[in-house]
């Protein structure tokens, strides 16, 4: 992206003042280097988001922003229903409630290193991954509806986890306001046999080594020490969420004009929050959030089963589970008043600061853990939410490294099997059914995650707590 088209506010904040149909400014948080690496489309898309009805304060792009459809990935926008605000299927994305759950293992690198290969094989055997993979469960119609209403709570009630897991999951593992009847039969059919599956693309499960601690007090509160081993799960609402995105993107694209919404581009398809279509989408989307919570809960159960025979007695507990593709109703300060807003985060992580009631009580004085996925060959991070991010970005931060190269370019440049061999030499074991999928996800196809989290910290969106390096990666 050409920096000349932006007004520089600080080293990490760039602004586009309202022009044309923009109702609010667009704000991008990134260093100059990250801005230059961003596609021009990010600028175009964040400007388009700023034109939508009922948008409050600004349309924001996080440091890992890249070209999405409609909203950029790494986009944040909040809408006021009392001012004709909208909800957008493209503003949430197809992979509704895609997110990261990190598990503490109580183990150190020395505990895992002698059994790393066996653990990688056990995880790969237990956790279905890749195209066409199926879960252990096949849900009936009524079970599906119960899962869509109950989320991770449903999964725990079925025996896949503990009460303690729920207390460390966003929304306590159950999103209220879900309407299973708003979910199409196509979406339900896609999900029937996909519970407890990772999926493909950028989704993964990793055993990670804590190689650096930046903020000891926060790390202690999170239960992390240098040299610990943690497990991170990155996946979402699988076929159900994809189909809900598909169904409502079409319906919103066709119906927008009937609601009097003048879209600068069809891809911004949306509906008023207070409309039958808006309410139906919100009900279906919340059901998909519950599906994602339940999915990550079942995978947690499978991870515990995979660890048990290799490292008997290992006790895996949930550090936190947070989504990065959602629309949530939250209270935020606007012009000195608290307002109830519908906050879209697409490839952006909620990052509540200290003392926010949405943070689990045991972590409230510190702030919300913000879980950032890297690539199979680079670091991931655990960050903590800040108080300043409330005024900067409706308490939002980055979500990952962000792609900088297309999948086609990546497959021309790397070979999956060679990449797996290279990573094995560095001590990173990859298990995947698809060498081509591995090549498409090559670490070099992504931005520098270190630069992204540093920019997030310098922008005041979140602070670094710990750096995690991959040891084992199960890739779909």
């Amino acid at each position, binding site marked *: 992206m050409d920096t000349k088209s932006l007004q520089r506010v600080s080293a990490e904040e760039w602004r586009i003042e309202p022009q044309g149909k923009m109702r609010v400014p667009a704000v991008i948080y990134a260093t100059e280097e990250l801005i230059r690496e961003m596609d021009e489309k990010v600028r175009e898309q964040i400007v388009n988001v700023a034109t939508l009805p009922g948008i409050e304060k600004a349309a924001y792009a996080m440091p890992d922003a890249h070209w999405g459809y409609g909203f950029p990935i790494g986009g944040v926008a909040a809408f006021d229903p009392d001012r004709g605000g909208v909800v957008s299927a493209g503003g949430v994305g197809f992979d509704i409630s895609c997110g990261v759950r990190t598990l503490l293992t109580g183990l150190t690198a020395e505990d895992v290193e002698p059994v790393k290969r066996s653990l990688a094989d056990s995880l790969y055997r237990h956790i279905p991954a890749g195209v066409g993979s199926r879960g252990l469960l096949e849900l009936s119609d009524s079970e599906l509806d119960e899962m869509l209403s109950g989320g991770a709570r449903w999964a725990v009630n079925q025996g896949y986890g503990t009460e303690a897991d729920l207390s460390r999951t966003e929304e306590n593992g159950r999103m209220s306001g879900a309407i299973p009847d708003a979910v199409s039969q196509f979406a339900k059919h*896609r999900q029937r046999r996909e519970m407890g599956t990772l*999926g493909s693309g950028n989704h993964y499960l990793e055993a990670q080594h804590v190689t650096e601690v930046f903020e000891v007090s926060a790390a202690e509160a999170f239960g992390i020490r240098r040299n610990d081993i943690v497990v991170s799960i990155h996946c979402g609402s699988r076929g159900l969420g994809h189909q809900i995105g*598909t169904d409502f993107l079409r319906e919103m694209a066709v119906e927008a004009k009937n609601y009097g919404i003048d879209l600068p581009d069809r891809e911004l398809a949306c509906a008023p929050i207070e409309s039958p279509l808006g309410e139906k989408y919100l009900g279906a989307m919340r059901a998909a959030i519950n599906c994602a919570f339940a999915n990550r809960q079942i995978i947690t159960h499978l991870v515990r089963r995979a660890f048990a025979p290799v490292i008997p007695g290992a006790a895996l507990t949930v550090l936190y589970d947070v989504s990065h593709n959602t629309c949530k109703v939250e209270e935020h300060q606007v012009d000195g008043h608290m307002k109830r807003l519908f906050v879209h985060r697409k490839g952006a992580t909620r990052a509540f600061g200290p003392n926010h009631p949405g943070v689990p009580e045991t972590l409230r004085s510190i702030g919300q853990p913000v879980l950032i996925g890297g690539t199979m060959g680079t670091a991931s991070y655990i960050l903590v939410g800040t108080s300043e991010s409330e005024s900067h970005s409706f308490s939002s931060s980055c979500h990952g490294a962000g792609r900088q190269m297309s999948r086609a370019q990546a497959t021309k440049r790397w070979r999956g099997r060679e990449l797996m061999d290279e990573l094995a030499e560095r001590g990173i074991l990859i298990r995947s059914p698809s060498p081509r999928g591995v090549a498409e996800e090559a670490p070099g196809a992504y931005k520098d995650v270190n630069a992204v989290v540093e920019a997030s910290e310098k922008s005041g969106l979140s602070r670094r707590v710990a750096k995690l390096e991959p040891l084992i990666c199960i890739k779909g």
Partner: protein
Amino acid sequence: MALMAVVTDPAHVALKREVIVERKAPDDEILLMDWLNALIYEMSANQLIFGSFDVLLGDHHLQGRAWGEKVDVERHEPAVEVKGATCTALSVTQNSNRDWVAQCVVDV
């Protein structure tokens, strides 16, 4: 065919099963989305992959047939699941040679 190439090499797909799709839409662009999403649904829900297609178009109405087989992970080495067809760069146009050009960005 471009949609299938995102997942695997369509040349390696055996044409064992047929799927019939019929859709109506307010315009040709939405119709293209509908066609692609019908195939994506079959790929996701029924684990199919396709290697050959026949499409008949008229007045925002589509009758299509797709031939393929159940995905075989070892043989097809599928790279990625396609989540859905988006409205991004969505267009159906006729060029100066009167050839039709249909484009759509799919999310993976």
